[in-house]
């Protein structure tokens, strides 16, 4: 959908925009120059292109969290359980090494075959899953492990038991935990970034998004059935609320787009992992050495700045 050059350009633009300019005209000039360049290079993704992202983000052969983890990290040690009531397989958590350095990992996990899909609840976590995420984040914080999260969920599970176990509060507290962490954090939306269930583990210093991933406040079908009163208008809804990576970057919601192999990550998972690995290393590199308090301050400032209002 977008060439690598364009992605880099968008990324650079987003970074420039996020800088608090110390009165420098020079920077503003560069910003304008880059924006013009980008405009020439590309138009807005069309409705069809956006829908193609929705389809690719949900493609059954798309790499899932553990597919990336096994390719990018060494020595993955999965941790289980929320230390309270359950082990929710829709969220995987653990420790691993990246270039010899230990990091913590939290991600939603969909299943490949019917049996695994069911056992992982199609990547839709219960509150217990978010509590497992929280305790893993706290472990990372205690030992100074950088945290990588991988977002790939249609949404938090909307079931009776999930509500009774406190789905809303668990999502809120997972976000609050991420806000408090004193370690570098990098979140990547690798497939479906579905609403509250996604943001619960995505309040990170750097938020990346795979080229064909989607990130949205509601599913296209959900939006269509509420606003158009017709779930089959999903494509129209997606075109309206623009869940694609290019728009998310433009809105400042993500910091960079992770390129995928031509045709999508599912065509070449190894190459997709190589590209994602590069982006993760780059993002972590930008964060290392930043003092804890400064990390927290910048993270809060970044999310506090999101939104468009008059």
């Amino acid at each position, binding site marked *: 959908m977008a060439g690598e050059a364009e992605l880099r350009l968008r990324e650079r633009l987003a970074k420039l925009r996020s800088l608090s300019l110390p009165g420098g005209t020079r920077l503003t000039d560069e910003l304008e120059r880059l924006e013009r360049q980008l405009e020439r290079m590309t138009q807005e993704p069309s409705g069809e292109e956006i829908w193609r992202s929705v389809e690719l983000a949900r493609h059954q052969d798309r790499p899932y969290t553990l597919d990336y983890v096994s390719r990018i990290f060494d020595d993955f040690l999965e941790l289980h359980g929320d230390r309270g009531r359950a082990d*929710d397989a829709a969220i995987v958590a653990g420790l691993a090494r990246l270039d010899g350095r230990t990091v913590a990992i939290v991600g939603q996990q969909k299943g490949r075959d019917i049996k695994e899909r069911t056992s992982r609840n199609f990547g839709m976590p219960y509150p217990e899953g978010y509590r497992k995420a929280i305790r893993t984040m706290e472990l990372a914080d205690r030992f100074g492990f950088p945290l990588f999260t991988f977002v790939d969920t249609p949404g938090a599970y*909307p079931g009776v038991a999930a*509500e009774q176990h406190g789905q*809303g509060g668990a999502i*809120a507290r997972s976000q609050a935990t991420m806000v408090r962490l004193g370690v570098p954090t990098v979140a990547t939306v690798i497939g479906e970034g579905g609403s509250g269930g996604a943001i619960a583990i995505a309040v990170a210093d750097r938020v990346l998004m795979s080229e064909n991933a989607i990130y949205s406040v509601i599913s296209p079908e959900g939006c269509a059935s509420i606003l158009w009163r017709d779930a089959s208008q999903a494509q129209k809804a997606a075109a309206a609320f623009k869940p694609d990576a290019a*728009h998310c970057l433009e809105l400042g919601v993500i910091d960079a787009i992770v390129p995928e192999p031509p045709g999508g990550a599912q065509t070449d998972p190894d190459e997709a992992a190589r590209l994602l690995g590069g982006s993760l290393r780059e993002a972590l590199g930008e964060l290392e050495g930043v003092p804890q308090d400064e990390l927290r301050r910048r993270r*809060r400032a970044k999310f506090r700045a*999101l*939104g468009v209002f008059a």
Partner: protein
Amino acid sequence: MSEARIDVSIEHKNAPEPEGKRHPNTCPACASHYRDEELDASLWVCPHCGHHFPMRAQARIASIADEGTFVEESADVRSEDPLDFFDLRPYTERLAEAEMSTGLGEAIVTGQAAIDGHACELAVMDFKFMGGSMGSAVGEKFSRACDSAAERGVALVSVSASGGARMQEGILALMQLPKTVCAVEELHEAKQPLVSVLAHPTTGGVLASFATLGDVIVAEPGALMSFAGPRVVQQTTREKLPDDFGLAESNLRFGHIDAVVPRPELKRYLTQVLRLFADGR
């Protein structure tokens, strides 16, 4: 299957009446009908059966703030339309209509106030403004209210009533969740509490962000508080929903709130909470 792996036991209790299409001043619980002034005088609680009608933001503020103490802040913050969103109608048109019909600039009203002499900050949502949905303007106003409370060294009392994030702002609406969470965190760093009052309904993104981060959390009788609405749960799971699904009373039983506080007692309750938090320092 996955339901069976994680413990799914549920409990059933007395059901509220379905809402249907009635006159807004007809009590859905006992079918009594009232004039506006009657309900206004009774804090929009049915004098006959105690049912809690939805309460507008200004009436809410009048009911808990000491007379003449409320000073609105951030009144000029308005929503924009960053996505040029158009469903059956343009988002801008919906906004204009909401402003016209409610007399409010957005779905939340914030400002300084005193409750029984205790200075505090108020953030009160109004369900009538686009279903109390949270977009960038609501997120900004709530966050500024946190800042104002932190700066002035007072508690923030929020009253939520929201269908969730505002779809028309797309991903930016979702970003109001972490934004308000960050604001609450900064309030806490200033050692000031968030007292969260959940009115009917508090669902979706508002429940999954600031509303459940209250240091004290209370809900009004019969208020729905659920991340997913009953219809979505029903459609997704095909489960038979318990009669009290997501209601304040069941949330108290499941440990999610500190109390169910009837509206006539809310001011007294808030006074006690503010007094306790003020005396700690």
